[in-house]
């Protein structure tokens, strides 16, 4: 779809999807992908000059596998993008593949990519392939991916204040994507 002004949307498509966002000059978009899991979602974003895009996703996988692929291409100068995708896996596998492309003639772009994965058990896995394809040096781009398990010391601390093991785990899962959730609540 073409975006010409400001666009905000929470997306929870419960099917395998390919979503194309074409941000025209001076436009902005803020997209939240949440509350669904078990599907493959491909998100393609083109950013024309002075446009900016924020992509956030959080997925709670329970006995299901979720794939997210993002392709962000800066097609205009001064374009910006921030993407942050988080997965909580219980007996599940998540896969995040992200690519930021900046062609040679595009100047002054900023693009950030974050992926965080929380594995709740030994049968869960997270695959991550954060990639940058940068053809000129006049850009600011970062990419990161972390995968971890719950911290037993944190669980002990919460339990020592009276919450059960399960309540403590749930509290830490909420905490894992709290900042994305509060961004979503603030923007709607």
């Amino acid at each position: 779809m073409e975006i010409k002004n400001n666009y905000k949307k929470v997306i929870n498509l419960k099917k395998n999807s390919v979503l194309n966002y074409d941000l025209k000059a001076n436009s902005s978009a803020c997209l939240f992908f949440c509350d669904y899991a078990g599907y493959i979602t491909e998100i393609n974003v083109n950013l024309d000059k002075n446009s900016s895009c924020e992509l956030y996703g959080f997925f709670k996988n329970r006995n299901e596998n979720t794939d997210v692929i993002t392709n962000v291409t800066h097609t205009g100068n001064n374009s910006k993008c921030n993407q942050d995708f988080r997965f909580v896996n219980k007996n599940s596998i998540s896969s995040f593949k992200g690519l930021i492309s900046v062609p040679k003639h595009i100047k002054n772009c900023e693009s950030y990519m974050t992926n965080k994965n929380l594995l709740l058990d030994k049968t869960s896995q997270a695959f991550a392939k954060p990639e940058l394809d940068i053809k000129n040096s006049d850009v600011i781009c970062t990419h990161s991916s972390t995968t971890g398990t719950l911290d037993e010391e944190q669980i002990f601390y919460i339990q020592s204040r009276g919450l059960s093991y399960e309540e403590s785990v749930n509290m830490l899962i909420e905490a894992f994507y709290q900042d994305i959730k509060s961004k979503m609540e603030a923007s709607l």
Partner: protein
Amino acid sequence: MLKIKNLKISIDNKEIIKDLNLEIKQGEIHALMGPNGSGKSTLSNVLAGKDGYNVTGEILYKGEDLLKMSIEERARKGLFMAFQYPIEIPGVNTINFLKSSLNVVRKSNKKEAIDTFEFLDLVKEKAKALNVNGSILNRHLNVGFSGGEKKKNEILQMSVLEPMFAILDETDSGLDIDSLKIISNGINSLRSICRSFLIITHYQRLLEHIKPDFVHVLADGKIIKTGCSELAEELEKVGYGNKKQL
């Protein structure tokens, strides 16, 4: 309140607590002193219910077998441990955490959940009484807190939860003089005939502010000496190295 009999604690076949006997009656304050590595923190972790220790012997809390209780059961029955190193939990708001904690403890004591407004008033009042800056309440739990703020947050939690038995694991370590005063005033204000304390410390400093009923010296996994508060002063002079002089 708390009765420890022939307690032995080991980790990976290494014996930390060798044979510990201790009785803390209702309303009493006991100080446990000892050099680094003498097993003080191990003891407090076992009392709070931390996993990973091999424990034999008996611990009775209010007549019940403490070792059979889960971590949260102990907390709900009024046992509180102020951590030596309070854990940072990003994404969990301090005040929400405190409210969840108070409500589960209230629920298990068959009290109604406290509503948000009532709770905010309560916490503000407690924070003010403890002279604790309320700004820490809106931050993530212990994240980016200074050493003093972390310890004050522990005492604030204690003051809100009103436990029956509180273990203070080196709460005085790393505090400046003013913070030490704030924290000891907080502890003193919670002193009551129905509440007991086990204060674990290296220094006599804290005990100048909080007068314990008993002072125990823990060394090599055993209590080697028990006395009244003068013992702490004596220790300050002779040090832990001269155990024979004690």
